[in-house]
């Protein structure tokens, strides 16, 4: 039962990253691909009706993690106190920038909000990556399953590392380029004219950076967290996850070259899902690794809620999420096709 919920939490988090990832990415690249006010409004319109709903996946993932693994939620949220608060502020700034940009007239404030939108999106991507890096590297858990990390110490991933060390920053950069790519491909698929062409051109360049970083991060990960290669050796079927990531990466450049924007975007979804599931598979059955003695690691067994609670939640969670998938699909279809500026509509 714990394993089922481990998978469901992982799926929800992957859903959040794939969905909110493209609007984060659109935020990262929009200054580059859209230069005039109407082009930027077009990019914003392509995410306008859905970014709010995408962000709700974060709430759903948080809520699911909370009741399924309360021990993990308590330990990790208090231990990652500072970066989480920074993430919250960035989410606020980003939401404000999107929401209030259209309420401001004149040339003074709009570029300002555009810069806030881009900056907050970029930092969020880096922080999310760094968070994943911390989960992989491990944190100094004590016997009662608690820890507290400062934002940085000396940038080396030893036992007194902070949130940011060279390894987690590297993962952060990979996340930044991965989501920038995701957003560029979304913009290419959802717009036409100059923003589309610029996004297509940009995605070719980013692909090389992303591939290079993927190789470096993979190498570093195997060195820093031996648990991951051990997991793969013990359960070789798990190679399906990194294979998914690689296939996504390969298909991405194939479709980018053929200018098949939607297929390139779906490849990017597969690539992101593959990367996340590889990491998650690698740490299982741990949920938070201790780098101060493996006996302190948090596992699905010592952090999960009671079995009645987990069982009864399946009954509402699965139909609930199917419902979510159904009306998300409806809304994406409703707003399908290329985004167009229409002066009479609210966005």
């Amino acid at each position, binding site marked *: 039962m714990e394993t089922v919920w481990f998978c469901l939490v992982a799926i929800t988090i992957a859903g959040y990253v794939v969905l909110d990832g493209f609007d984060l990415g659109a935020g990262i690249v929009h200054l580059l691909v859209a230069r005039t006010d109407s082009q930027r409004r077009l990019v914003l319109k392509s995410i306008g*009706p859905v970014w709010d709903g995408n962000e709700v996946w974060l709430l*759903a993932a*948080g809520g699911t993690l909370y009741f399924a693994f*309360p021990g993990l939620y308590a330990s990790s949220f208090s231990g990652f106190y500072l970066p989480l608060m920074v993430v919250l502020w960035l989410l606020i700034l980003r939401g404000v920038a999107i929401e209030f940009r*259209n309420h401001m007239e004149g040339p003074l404030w709009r570029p300002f909000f555009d810069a806030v939108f881009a900056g907050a999106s970029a930092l969020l991507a880096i922080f999310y990556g760094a968070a994943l890096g911390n989960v992989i590297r491990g944190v100094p858990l004590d016997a009662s399953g608690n820890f507290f990390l400062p934002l940085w110490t000396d940038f080396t991933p030893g036992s007194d590392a902070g949130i940011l060390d060279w390894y987690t920053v590297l993962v952060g950069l990979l996340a930044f380029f991965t989501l920038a790519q995701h957003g560029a491909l979304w913009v290419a698929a959802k717009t036409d004219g100059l923003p589309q062409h610029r996004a297509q051109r940009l995605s070719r360049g980013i692909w090389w950076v992303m591939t290079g970083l993927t190789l470096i991060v993979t190498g570093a990960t195997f060195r820093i967290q031996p648990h991951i290669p051990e997991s793969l050796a013990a359960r070789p079927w798990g190679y399906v996850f990194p294979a998914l990531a690689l296939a996504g990466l390969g298909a991405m450049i194939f479709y980018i070259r053929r200018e098949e924007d939607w297929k390139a975007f779906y490849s990017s979804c597969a690539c992101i899902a593959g990367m996340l599931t590889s990491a998650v598979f690698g740490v299982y059955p741990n949920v938070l690794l201790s780098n101060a003695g493996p006996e302190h690691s948090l596992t699905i067994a010592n952090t999960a809620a009671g079995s*009645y609670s987990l069982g009864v939640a399946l009954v509402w969670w699965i139909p609930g999420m199917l*419902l979510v998938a159904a*009306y998300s699909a409806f809304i994406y279809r409703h707003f399908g096709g290329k985004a167009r500026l229409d002066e009479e509509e609210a966005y």
Partner: protein
Amino acid sequence: MDSALALHRFHFAFTITFHYVFAQLSMGLALLIFALKTAALRTGNERYNDAARFWAKIFAVSFAIGVVTGIPMEFQFGTNWARFSKAAGGVIGQTLAMEGVFAFFLESSFLGLFLSGEKRLGPKLHWATSLLMFLGTWLSGYFIVATDAWMQHPVAYSLKANGQAVLESFWGLLFNPWVGWMYVHNMIGTVVTASVVVASVGAYYLLEKQHEEFGRIFVRTGVIAGVLSSVLIAFPAGDRQGKMVARFQPATLAAMEGLFTTTKAAPLAIIGQPDTEKKRLDNPAVVPGFLSILTYRHWSAEVKGLDAFPPDQVPDNIPLLYYSYHIMVGLGTAFIAVMAVSAWLLRSGTLYRVRGWLWVLMLMLPFPFIANTAGWMTAELGRQPWLIYGVMRTPAGSSSQVSSGNTLFTLLGFMGMYALLAILFLFVTHREIEHGPESPAKLPEHVPGSSASTTF
């Protein structure tokens, strides 16, 4: 009290109070927008659609702030209240996750559809999206109130040896006896807020002699919804919730009422300042015997005072609790009076012309926000010194490894961030209100120098 604990408490109190200013407006407006859409569909009067579209714009801004300030609430359970979360997450995580899965997705998805899909959807489907928005926001409210209700009155759980609460009954949690009246009371409170806001903007238009047709629609809508909600919130909702407090949290009731000694035929204090050192109410103005009647429906019934409970069982901030409760009740009574007079003037057909009374309606704007905030403060201060009533004390629930320095850092950060949000909200809503609800299509075309150029 050690300073880290005080900061954790203030951190949560500050962020939730700010969040709820917007959440209450959104939930109340969702109902009124649905009512306006229904009126438009039934009467075919396009003005109702214009009015709904106008309030949907305000709703959208308020909802967006509600979302970005709501995510920190869920996070803070883990960041600032880790020991509480570890103990209670298996139970209340359930209702919090249900809010995300069932309610939140519904609201945010259909808000996007409501705002930008009117033409494509047609009138009936557009009306349906307003219904789904309303259901979504009110469902959200239910899950949050159910979460709080478990902290007020924990049920359907058992305690493991390590102090962790384990859920025993799913339906028991969802239909906690505490939930029903608290939910009704709370949701009617949001309708009072939205009614007063709508009536107040309408009164402003009539006083300013601009957008007067909408001024009349807003005043009428606000007053009708306002008179119903301001009465219902007191009776039966408030009355029943008060009885629930008397039954399950008698020490809280005594502190709310400022009743220091156990008394037969207990008086109801209207004003007065509790002096916790001398254990008495200074400068009291009381209605004799009324507290006994309200609580037990009996003139001479005995009501337990604070002296009937050990000192470690009574709320730790009696004066603030007392004032919160009295501000809520005082304002609630004032709302009934103002709305009843307004409804009478509306019926007699003179309301739109009585400028003095329109001033009263307009100036009411901030007070329902204060009353709702005071109500929640009554509930949460009244729960003290418990975090989970009777099970876990507040000092036992905070994150032990998050220092006061780090907590103060993030508290100041939130204060700055929320000050920015408040300024932007006021700026944008002010602009929307000045701009008015006229639909661009209805304006005369190409009138030189007309206000049409301000539409975007």
